[in-house]
């Protein structure tokens, strides 16, 4: 299973990755390493990694543990002139080799172990996955008890289900869906982690285990499309689940809400002036050319009283929040290696353009950026809110 030489490894990347053979076309231009948010702290940022593999320095590559700084943000892959699938192919495959060899930071091990045992990275009880909807003002049908087909199957995701801060985003979306009279249901305890981030830690076996559980659950029910507020779930459902034979239309909540724009707009009220900037999540934008850049901006600009400003890094140049590729579960490790956090750079950018609110659209981002507001000593100066929270505030006050 594990490979013994650089050449075997390159061969594995080529065989296991769509367009993997592009790796033969690396020009050693270094654009990847330059754009990598953690490249400065890695022993082998992507360009050097390919050079080392070509020189057959497999031992050196395996000796280094800084591959775990890779946050699978697709920055490298998106600038590569040879279109090498660096993130999903080269880097995630190296992580697999590290996992197979037993080289894994303890914090990441806990998240992967939790995912395998409980179906969520947080290690929470699977039975409590829908507890966020208990005693909530808006009815949230759970498919197992709903017994009827729905228009929209809402894939809530781990953090949306369990994380206290992200539950607020989930509830805001539930309220908006209810007001729009959307016929929706959730899987509740039958839902497992989408597995996307676990896959990008190199744990593809775990991804498949989780994905197959979700596919079995989803195939029990009748629905027209899938909705999710989680770009990682969106990416997995759109690009990875079809490889396992599950092909269903999936929309990110910002896409879905733009489709209902005509009905949302009359509900939006001016609740006072606010200057808002927007952080593009990697998995809505760069990853797999998902290119969902305009929809969140369109929603934000529609809010009366809202002044929209761009940060210097926007759209495809967005700086990762550091949560992808396992970064969500490697905070201690990354700090130890890099002594900086990408979230903190982002908070400074948002403040530099005079924003009162940093709008986000990924469940990793609300808690991560809120922490960074505090750790940079800017508590009270910048709020972090999901796009749907801002819409709900404008609608309901």
């Amino acid at each position, binding site marked *: 299973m594990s490979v013994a030489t650089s050449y075997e490894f390159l061969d594995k990347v080529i065989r296991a990755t769509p367009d993997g053979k592009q790796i033969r076309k690396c020009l050693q231009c270094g654009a990847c390493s330059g754009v990598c948010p953690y490249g400065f702290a890695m022993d082998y940022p992507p360009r050097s990694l390919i050079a080392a593999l070509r020189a057959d320095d497999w031992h050196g590559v395996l000796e280094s543990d800084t591959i775990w700084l890779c946050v699978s943000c697709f920055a490298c892959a998106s600038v590569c002139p040879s279109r090498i699938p660096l993130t999903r192919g080269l880097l995630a495959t190296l992580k697999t080799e590290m996992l197979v060899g037993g080289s894994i930071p303890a914090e990441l091990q806990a998240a992967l172990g939790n995912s395998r045992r409980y179906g969520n990275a947080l290690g929470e*009880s699977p039975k409590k996955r829908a507890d966020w909807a208990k005693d909530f003002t808006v009815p949230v049908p759970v498919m197992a008890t709903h017994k009827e087909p729905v228009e929209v199957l809402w894939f809530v995701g781990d953090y949306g289900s369990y994380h206290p801060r992200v539950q607020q985003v989930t509830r805001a979306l539930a309220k908006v869906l209810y007001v729009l009279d959307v016929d929706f249901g959730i899987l509740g305890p039958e839902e497992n982690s989408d597995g996307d981030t676990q896959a990008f830690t190199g744990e593809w076996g775990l991804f498949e285990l989780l994905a197959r559980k979700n596919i079995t659950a989803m195939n029990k029910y009748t629905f027209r499309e899938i909705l999710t507020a989680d770009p990682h779930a969106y990416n997995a459902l759109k690009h990875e689940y079809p490889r396992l034979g599950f092909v269903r239309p999936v929309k990110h909540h910002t896409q879905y809400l733009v489709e209902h724009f005509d009905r949302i707009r009359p509900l939006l009220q001016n609740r006072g002036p606010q200057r808002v900037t927007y952080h593009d999540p990697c998995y809505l934008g760069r990853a797999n050319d998902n290119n969902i850049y305009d929809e969140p901006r369109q929603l934000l600009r529609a809010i009366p009283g809202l002044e929209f400003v761009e940060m210097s890094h926007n759209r495809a140049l967005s700086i990762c929040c550091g949560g992808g590729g396992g970064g969500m579960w490697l905070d201690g490790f990354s700090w130890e290696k890099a002594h900086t956090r990408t979230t903190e750079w982002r908070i400074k950018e948002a403040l530099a353009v005079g924003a009162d609110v940093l709008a986000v659209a990924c469940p990793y981002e609300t808690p991560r950026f809120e922490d960074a507001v505090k750790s940079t000593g800017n508590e009270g100066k910048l709020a972090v809110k999901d796009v749907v929270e801002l819409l709900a505030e404008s609608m309901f006050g």
Partner: protein
Amino acid sequence: MDIVVLMKFVPDLVEDLEIDGSTGLLERSFLRLIPNELDEHALEEALLLKDRCGGVVSVLTLDFGDVDEALFTALAKGADRAIKLTGEGFDQGPSNQRIAGAFSRALGDLRFDLILTGTQAVDDLDGFVGGLVADRLELPYVGYVTKVTPADGELIVHKEYPGGLNAEIEVTRPAVLGIQAAEKPPRYVVTSKVMEAMKTRKIEEIALGEVATELEVPVAAMALPESGSHAQMIEGDAQQVAEKIVTLLRERGIVA
């Protein structure tokens, strides 16, 4: 060095525990069972020893319920044999006396130089499995062990005492050791290796039937912990707080 790891399964405290009103015992129908955390450390220590000295690592457990996945995981991590003991009532939360009885009976037919198990578990109501097994097999036992080093037919074991005190103890082989922590955190094994083990490896079964114990500690009733009265916060500056504490201690007869 051939090592047997004794693995016990305990209720997962991630789920809310319930007491069955009719029996006064733990409601078992919805219970999730997981390997005792310290038994996983015992397995890790066994695998580290195997890396250093060779030998066969066998994992022994009772058919507590849903144990197969954990056994395949142990095989994927590097264990050589996984053995499941079947018997009456093993899935009904057997006492440690009964568990030790079952382990001891099976160990009579196994070759080993060392037996490792977790030093304790969350559901120990009647002693610790390691000590009980050692007593039945008339073997030496050391608990709270954090390191095992083989030396000249013996073992040097590190034992932790409260208060930061450590001891190095020479133990003759074979022996039973209760592991407090392995030298490294238990290893992670990728899911694909566990799946492969499920396809290619076998779990051995030994049928024990009924395991009688002379010493069964009856459990009269169990109860969920109740929160007591809340702590009283004493407000004020240092002088005022000190005076209030002295008054309280006098009132309660703790100081004259």
